[in-house]
């Protein structure tokens, strides 16, 4: 194959891990090609069609088309699943994210040192400090647009002001504040990667409420599609090739990455050669790509002399509780003003570090309070499932009547530490192939028992806050605990200083393969107890600085 497609940098993936590298390097003068598996949607493609966008294959492929497989709790046989996909489009997961924008804390990066280790878990300290990340958090927040208030969360490290003032909350936030404070908690406005006022050419949020699972038709959600990629393309040096499935990383005899092979939208095999290869396809898919790139010299995949590619897969430990409140009682207390606003926007991090809780680890998590997602079908199905599908007929219609007209659902989600250990990893499925006849990623999922214990404890504490809200809820109930948030994924190519115990060096370059970088959540040796998107963005800017200096 002729090397007529030669650039400085090829980036696989256009989400939080790929876009900052692409933009930074293109703006510094490098010629960049971004290969994205998904379609190149524009904001005109983003409708509020719940069925098409959330319940079919607009973002996530059908099982028969492009599945993952999964083995849960040590099962022998794997089953096809749609879990583990993030949105398949230019902009990646940032397009359909909710945009909760918390930073990591010192404990997240020093978990092994601070705990002395956790039985059965393979935690590791990060090879960089939080201080090293902070300037890049600042850079990322400014580049994409984040709304919030600095200095109001007593558990946050000192930080710069947010680029934008906070979003406007639903009045029920007052009740959550009151309840949380009555129990000694310190609620604070949830930072969001949504622009609360005009930001550059982007208009302020119109408060439609359909952020999570949707693309923003207003351009106000700070996806890389809306924020970074237009800047990259504006340089004239960054080309985004959509619907291109990368199938192999090309490595020469000196173990130097020289490009990638990919299958274009016509189904033809192509190659692009580059001085630097950056993989940012998501923690699951990046590991899959490295494993798929095995050859006679690298039988276990490239960059895998440690045997750790795909290992230590972590997600976010998930819990959720619901409080069902009488709408009239809330209106009677707060008045009708702004009751149509969709965001509750309150978080609590008092239980982020809990050495006195008597649990298997001192690491807790974050409570994110929110109103139930406004999707009507999702809500109606939830009413059915909450009864184990036993409510149907007129009782179901009556229940829908109550939900939509007489109730306010206040919920919280727990973001907890998901422990890396031998029970959770990704490898290549030996049987199942995707539509390009490539082996699919097989997710092997088993939650560490300590992580479940802590999540259950956190969920109970969240329920305490719901129970303290006045007026009293008609019902407060846990929805789940010890679960898994699949679209928050990390760890499969952890970084570290020791090549025997890590895949990437501290600059996220592969120990084994020169000029090969991985910049999605794969690099994270521990998950942290918040959604990782801001951290992935910040780290990608950090790595871009390193590559820029090297290319220069």
């Amino acid at each position, binding site marked *: 194959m002729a090397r007529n497609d030669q650039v400085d940098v090829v980036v696989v993936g256009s989400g939080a891990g790929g876009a900052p590298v692409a933009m930074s390097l293109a703006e510094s003068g490098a010629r960049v090609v971004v290969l994205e598996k998904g379609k190149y949607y524009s904001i005109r493609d983003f409708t509020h069609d719940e069925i098409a966008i959330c319940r079919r294959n607009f973002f996530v492929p059908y099982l028969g088309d492009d599945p993952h497989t999964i083995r849960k709790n040590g099962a022998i046989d794997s089953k096809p699943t749609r879990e583990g996909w993030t949105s398949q489009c230019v902009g990646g997961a940032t397009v359909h994210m909710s945009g909760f924008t918390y930073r990591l804390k010192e404990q997240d990066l020093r978990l092994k040192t601070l705990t002395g280790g956790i039985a059965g878990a393979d935690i590791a300290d990060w090879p960089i400090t939080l201080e090293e990340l902070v300037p890049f958090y600042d850079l990322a927040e400014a580049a994409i647009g984040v709304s919030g208030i600095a200095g109001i969360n007593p558990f946050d490290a000192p930080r710069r002001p947010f680029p934008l003032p906070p979003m406007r909350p639903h009045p029920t936030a007052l009740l959550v504040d009151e309840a949380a404070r009555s129990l000694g908690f310190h609620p604070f406005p949830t930072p969001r990667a949504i622009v609360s006022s005009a930001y550059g050419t982007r208009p302020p949020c119109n408060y439609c409420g359909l952020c999570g699972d949707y693309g923003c038709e207003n351009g106000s959600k700070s996806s890389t599609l809306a924020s970074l990629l237009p800047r990259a393309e504006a340089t004239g040096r960054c080309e985004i090739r959509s619907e291109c499935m990368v199938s192999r990383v090309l490595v020469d005899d000196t173990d130097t990455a020289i490009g990638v092979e990919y299958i274009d939208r016509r189904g033809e095999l192509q190659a692009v050669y580059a001085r630097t290869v950056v993989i940012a396809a998501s923690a699951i898919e990046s590991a899959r790509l490295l494993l798929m790139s095995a050859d006679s010299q690298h039988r276990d995949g490239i960059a895998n002399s440690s045997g750790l590619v795909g290992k230590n897969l972590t997600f976010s430990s998930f819990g959720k509780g619901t409080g069902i409140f009488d709408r009239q009682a809330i209106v009677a207390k707060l008045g009708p*003003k702004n009751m149509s606003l969709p965001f509750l926007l309150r978080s609590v991090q008092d239980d982020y570090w809990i050495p006195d809780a008597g649990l298997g680890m001192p690491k807790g998590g974050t409570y994110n309070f929110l109103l139930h997602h406004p999707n009507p079908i999702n809500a109606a199905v939830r009413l059915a499932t909450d009864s184990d*599908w036993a409510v*149907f007929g007129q009782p179901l219609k009556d229940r829908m009547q109550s939900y939509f007209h007489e109730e306010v659902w206040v919920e919280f989600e727990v973001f907890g530490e998901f422990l890396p250990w031998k029970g959770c990893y990704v490898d290549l499925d030996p049987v199942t192939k995707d539509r390009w006849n490539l082996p699919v990623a097989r997710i092997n999922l088993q939650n560490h028992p300590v992580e479940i214990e802590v999540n259950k404890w956190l969920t109970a504490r969240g329920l305490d806050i719901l129970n303290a809200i006045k007026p009293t809820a008609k019902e407060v109930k846990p929805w789940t605990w010890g679960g898994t948030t699949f679209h928050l994924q990390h760890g499969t190519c952890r970084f570290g200083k020791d090549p025997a115990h890590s895949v990437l060096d501290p600059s996220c370059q592969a120990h084994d393969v020169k000029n090969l970088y991985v910049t999605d959540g794969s690099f994270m040796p521990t998950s942290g107890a918040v959604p990782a998107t801001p951290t992935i963005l910040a780290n990608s800017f950090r790595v871009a600085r390193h590559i820029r200096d090297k290319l220069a």
Partner: protein
Amino acid sequence: METLELHRRTLLKGLAGVACVGLWPACRLKDRKPTSPGWLARLPPDRVAALGAATEAILPGARAAGALLFIDYWMQQEMVENMAHMLDIGAIMLNRVAQVEHQAVFAECSIEQQAHVLGIFQKNAVDETLAKVRRGPAKASRFDARGFFERLVTLTLESYLGEPKYGGNKDKVGWHFIGWKHCWWSPKHIGTLIDADPRLPY
């Protein structure tokens, strides 16, 4: 969009005339590929009637809102072949269970009887029910009664509350029912509601 809406109304009016005899032509909307012949048109009328009655028993008003048109549309899409097979078998089983329990096909049972039959599916107890009339030892079938029930409930709710362009939510009856809460259809109007709230400093 307006053209599409008018086209759809015309189509639904036309379909209303043939629905009563169980003939369900393809839901041809201007912006999608031709899908004829319709999936439901290939099923015997008693199965179509069973599915229609089941959607109504799951959510009163769903059948008139176009639940069958909605199902017909989606069963013709590429990635739902297994689902279509499940619905086909499910319709047969609805009638069989109804015959065993109430000596009538599902569509001819009373509302209470239909709820009773659907309850058997919800409890995944179809095999036990059919064993009452089967000679010899009971044997487990490969039919996933619970899975069928969950799928049918989900499709019914989708049809009632989803975009009307898929054949359901006729005249936006589902959105009227829930009171046009939230703003998934038109976010532009919400912007005017947002005023500073002095009780909420942040």
